[in-house]
């Protein structure tokens, strides 16, 4: 018991525990929409893209680098959506070009000019040591914003996630909902970047949601379970990170992966069947705008 309580005597650890749990909750929550929309790859790409903005923004306005990275991420998300909607280039190709180019730019800028914020390694794999009070407030604000967005637009999000064609003809502003979701996703990635790291954020967007899908056939319960799995992964992962002496992001993701394996072992084929359609992109051939192929 003493071993478990011992790290709690350090203020930085308590702070890290709170941030990791909240980051896990946020990514688990928003991840449900990302996974059910078949957008897992966008989450992966966006986190890399934001890294580019993260590095670039530090050069021009070091004190506002998070705002710069956020704007960069939102611009990338909207660029991906726009390019993919044109229909000539698939979403996966658009993500491949835009986000990896952005990531490469970030690596080049880090290598050439260094950083006044988190180190290169911390940005990639996450660390609790560099977390500032402003970042904690930012994470809390993004979490509240995400919860409010989902609460106020729950039905539109559900409809556009399940059936964008019919949602559109039923008067739901599908484009606006998708753009707002992209902005929220960018902000969520940005807010959790310092804890979980650029390269591992995507895993925490996907793993809790997939675990939740394996456990339930209800959308509402999936949101709740995914959030809980995210919190648990963040909390236990942070402890594991402290004892193992490795970056927080790696242990948070490993805990999530362990939960996935355990749930898979218990649910077996039923769980796999439930999660089988998660990579399905429900294209909208009916509603492709004029000019699209």
């Amino acid at each position, binding site marked *: 018991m003493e071993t478990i309580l011992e790290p709690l005597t350090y203020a930085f650890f308590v702070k890290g525990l709170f941030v990791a749990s909240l980051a896990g909750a946020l990514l688990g929550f928003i991840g449900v929409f990302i996974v*059910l929309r078949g957008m897992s790859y966008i989450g992966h790409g966006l986190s890399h893209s934001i890294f580019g903005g993260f590095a670039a923004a530090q050069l021009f306005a070091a004190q506002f680098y998070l705002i710069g990275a956020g704007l960069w991420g939102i611009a990338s998300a909207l660029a991906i959506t726009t390019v993919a909607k044109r229909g000539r280039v698939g979403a996966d190709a658009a993500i491949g070009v835009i986000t990896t180019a952005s990531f490469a730019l970030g690596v080049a800028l880090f290598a050439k000019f260094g950083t006044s914020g988190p180190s290169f390694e911390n940005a990639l794999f996450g660390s609790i040591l560099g977390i500032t009070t402003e970042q904690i407030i930012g994470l809390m604000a993004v979490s509240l914003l995400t919860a409010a967005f989902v*609460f*106020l637009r*729950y*039905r*539109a999000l*559900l*409809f556009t*996630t*399940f*059936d964008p*064609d*019919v*949602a*559109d*003809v*039923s*008067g*739901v502003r599908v484009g606006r909902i998708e753009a707002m979701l992209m902005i929220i996703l960018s902000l969520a990635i940005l807010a959790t970047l310092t804890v979980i790291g650029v390269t591992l954020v995507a895993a925490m967007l996907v793993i809790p949601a997939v675990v939740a*899908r394996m456990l*339930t*056939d*209800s*959308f*509402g319960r*999936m949101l709740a379970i995914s959030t809980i799995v995210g919190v648990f992964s963040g909390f236990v992962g942070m402890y594991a990170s402290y004892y193992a002496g490795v970056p927080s992001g790696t242990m948070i993701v490993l805990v999530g992966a362990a939960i996935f394996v355990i749930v898979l072992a218990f649910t077996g084929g039923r769980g796999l*069947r*439930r999660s*089988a*359609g*998660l990579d*399905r992109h*429900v294209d909208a*051939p*009916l*509603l*492709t705008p*004029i*000019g*699209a*192929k």
Partner: protein
Amino acid sequence: MTGTGVGPELISLTGVSVGYDHHHVLSDVSFHIHEDQFTAVVGPSGAGKTTLLRVLLGVLKPDHGTITSQPGLRVSYVPQLETVNWNFPITVFECVLMSRTIGRRLPWPSRAERAEVSSVLERLGIGNLATRHIRELSGGQQQRMFLARALLRQPQLLLLDEPTSGVDVSTRHDVLHLLADLHEDGVAIVLTTHDLNGLAAHLPHIVCVNGGIVADGSPAEVITPEVLERTFGARMEVLEHLGMRVVVDEAPHMFAARGVN
């Protein structure tokens, strides 16, 4: 059965040309939908059937021509079953409730909404399936669920994309009778189909489409070898059975008899 379009007009297309990348899929289409419409739109793949639905739904704007619709017209759309992700984690009730999305609404249904959804599910004979996951439904039940979602909007016009595509004969009969009942209740219906014998021939009005409207009228007027050849680009035989037109593909030996290679 009425349905050939003599009631007040709901939507009117006049000289409409529409397409993608400035390539017209439909040219110079004039088509008027009335309150008592019950129409099958038939044609080969790529003929413009779905494009016509998109125009009627208002999601495709024409390059030329005019579209006028009755102010405040309520249109509902039923998608093809084959385009749906049946593994999505929702119940029948949640799916039908999607029709109640517009406006400021809480995530959970109000008591009135619960009653409305239950009522429409009962009307379609699937009231006992409200809590089932959508994957657990049969083809006929899936189609009923989407009809329930469409009907919750109390539409004046119901548009269906290939409602019998990929379903068995019994389900096709189910769907046909259900649509006939809805039409009797005053809902105008326009559907696309490949199924000439199983669906289109049973409807009072058929529109043949292939880059434009090739012909339209009652089955007796439209289901003829000449019109079908102009529509589908293939020769077909038309037989009479119990007063209904039955379309039969022309067999290879018949080509030979006509001297066609």
